């Protein structure tokens, strides 16, 4: 630990009303043998203190790369980062973000089984950032670690400090991860699928806990999830990503009440819900996510979309705004253009890219 030195932590800005995080036309690419893989392709959002931005999309949509890149965790000579990110007034693209880690920005990972060091006692793992970032000594760090474990609802915290991760259950380990991430009281937390590996009752506990801690500390958070139920209940704003691009972006309630993008609609319709009678036929999204090295021309989602027209296969839709609701689609759901496009596809029995459309407007 002694090799790591932390330079002066950047000061917090004086204006509490300024957005904490401002991401503008942000792009992340990876050089591969086949060409540049555009993992994040032009993402823009603002995140204020105390707010939660949900980021939704399938595997490979770029949601994790986006957040890891904001944190400065994707460090590779093959990586290209463009655009602008200001964190509390400081431009951080192309800079070393390590000075921010711990007490300005922090992250919890998806897999609590593998994100903790298996050969280090829990207490030491929580104490490490405290000693490193807050300059505490061993005794202070241990006391604070006990407090943190109590805060995240771990019974018998003092006994747990001397246990190894394998002695804890999955839900407990995730709580230890949260305790570590929150040890430095960060302003911004990235939660990358924090509950995906957990049971529903534990998931509810962890999400309630995160919400509570967030309210107490005015902490901003991005919550990456593929679960639309979690996204709906736990976020203020939502960003729907597909193939590295933003498909739809809006306050969560607006997005669910006036869904515009066919991809958001398709995601929502593919999940089974409790009010469906048993053996209800589900509506999967046919095909698979796009190749981000040489994506198809036109809309990335066109090859899997039931609204697709000729234009979708050639022109790339840009984000258009309807107040605070943004979407990238020529034939949005719930508009006249969208209804017409679907009707056209129903009549000809297929979309412009040749996907079969049934008389009810379903794919396949």
């Amino acid at each position, binding site marked *: 630990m002694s090799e790591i030195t932390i330079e002066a932590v950047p000061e917090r800005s004086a204006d509490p009303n300024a957005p904490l995080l401002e991401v503008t036309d942000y792009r992340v690419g990876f050089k591969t043998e086949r060409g540049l893989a555009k993992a994040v392709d032009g993402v823009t959002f603002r995140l204020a203190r105390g707010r939660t931005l949900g980021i939704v999309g399938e595997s490979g949509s770029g949601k994790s790369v986006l957040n890891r890149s904001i944190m400065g965790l994707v460090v590779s000579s093959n990586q290209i980062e463009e655009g602008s990110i200001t964190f509390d007034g400081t431009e951080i693209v192309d800079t070393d973000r390590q000075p921010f880690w711990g007490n300005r920005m922090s992250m919890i990972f998806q897999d609590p089984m593998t994100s903790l060091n298996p050969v280090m006692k829990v207490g030491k793992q929580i104490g490490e950032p405290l000693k490193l970032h807050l300059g505490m000594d061993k005794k202070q760090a241990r006391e604070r670690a006990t407090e943190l474990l109590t805060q995240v609802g771990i019974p018998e915290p003092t006994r747990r400090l001397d246990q190894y991760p394998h002695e804890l259950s999955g839900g407990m380990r995730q709580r230890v991860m949260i305790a570590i991430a929150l040890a430095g009281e960060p302003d911004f937390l990235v939660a990358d699928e924090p509950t995906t590996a957990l049971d529903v009752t534990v998931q509810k506990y962890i999400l309630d806990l995160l919400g509570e801690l967030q309210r107490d500390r005015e902490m901003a958070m991005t919550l990456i999830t593929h679960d639309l139920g979690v996204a709906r209940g736990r976020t203020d704003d939502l960003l729907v990503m597909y193939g590295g691009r933003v498909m739809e972006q809006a306050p969560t309630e607006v997005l669910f009440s006036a869904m515009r993008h066919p991809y958001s609609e398709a995601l929502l319709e593919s999940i089974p819900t409790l009010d469906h*009678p048993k053996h209800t036929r589900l509506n999967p999204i046919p095909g698979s996510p796009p190749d981000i090295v040489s994506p198809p021309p036109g809309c990335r989602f066109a090859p899997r979309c039931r609204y697709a027209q000729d234009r979708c296969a050639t022109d790339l839709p840009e984000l258009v705004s309807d107040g605070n609701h943004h979407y990238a689609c020529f034939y949005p759901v719930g508009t006249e253009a969208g209804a017409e496009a679907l009707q056209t596809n129903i009549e000809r029995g297929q979309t412009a890219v040749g996907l079969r459309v049934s008389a009810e407007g379903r794919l396949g």
Partner: protein
Amino acid sequence: MAGTGSAHLRDDPNVLLRVEDLVVEFKAGRKGTVHAVSGVSFDVMDGETLGLVGESGCGKSTTAKAVIQIPAPTSGEVLYNGTDLAALKGEDMRRMRPEIQMIFQDPISSLNPRRKIRDVISEGLAVWGDAHGTWSQDRIEELMIAVGIDPKYGDRRPHQFSGGQCQRIGIARALALDPKVLICDEPVSALDVSVQAQVLNLLEDMKTRYGLTLLFISHDLSVVKNVSDRIIVMYLGKAAEIGDAEELYHRPRHPYTRALLASIPEPAPTVDVHEGDIAGELPSPINPPDGCRFNTRCPHADDICFTDEPIMTQVGDADHFVACHHPVDVTIRT
């Protein structure tokens, strides 16, 4: 929620699989015993789908594995078509295996990475042959087409396919021997929602096409509701509640089932359950609580719950059984 008893077993000639008082225990350390499954009974009719739902550590996978005798249960009967599998030995058991096949949670690691998928799918046939003791590549192609994998990719290896495709290959492998029963152990929990829907639809199609009976294990209550005719909720090695899928979700009686339902984050909230949170941690299966096993976390627990184990009893006239001293009687809005 310790629920023993067998009131819910049906006396019907169409019962294909009947598990009675299944107990699975493992040695832990020098003295301890893990009580993984303690006296679970259920039956599955020909062509029915039984959903097995519960949290990690409730014994649902162990139950499924005990059905196919890997490992054999500590005690209890597993009657398949009237034959007790637990009593079969060696060659007799081997002859029975093609009848009950299984698909697994992690589709990629359940396929041998070094083999072509054509060989992965055909291995069972190479051992058994079909009904006439022969088989051909046509049968493999038919299976691949049935599960939606283009036969021209037969020479590829598992890493060249996505997770969803690997799960399709796993299904084709399980179906190659024309099984009667297919055990699905969390078959979609590693998949994206869009792919999950594809695989669930495929399972329903295969069930119709090949006349399968399914034992479907999942921790996702919405998924289980979608595929199952009847559902059994498990907690810490015991059955808590059993019933028709619609009935069970409409009128959950067991406090644990209600807590589970209340925890689901729904994108379009339709179910209104206010059970309150269940507190505390899952007790250790090495030293499970006396009486009802749910008593350490149950908001309704009183004296009797700590001394007497609740017995599975029918509630109302419907196909609905619950093992609880204080079943809740509030219909939830759906």
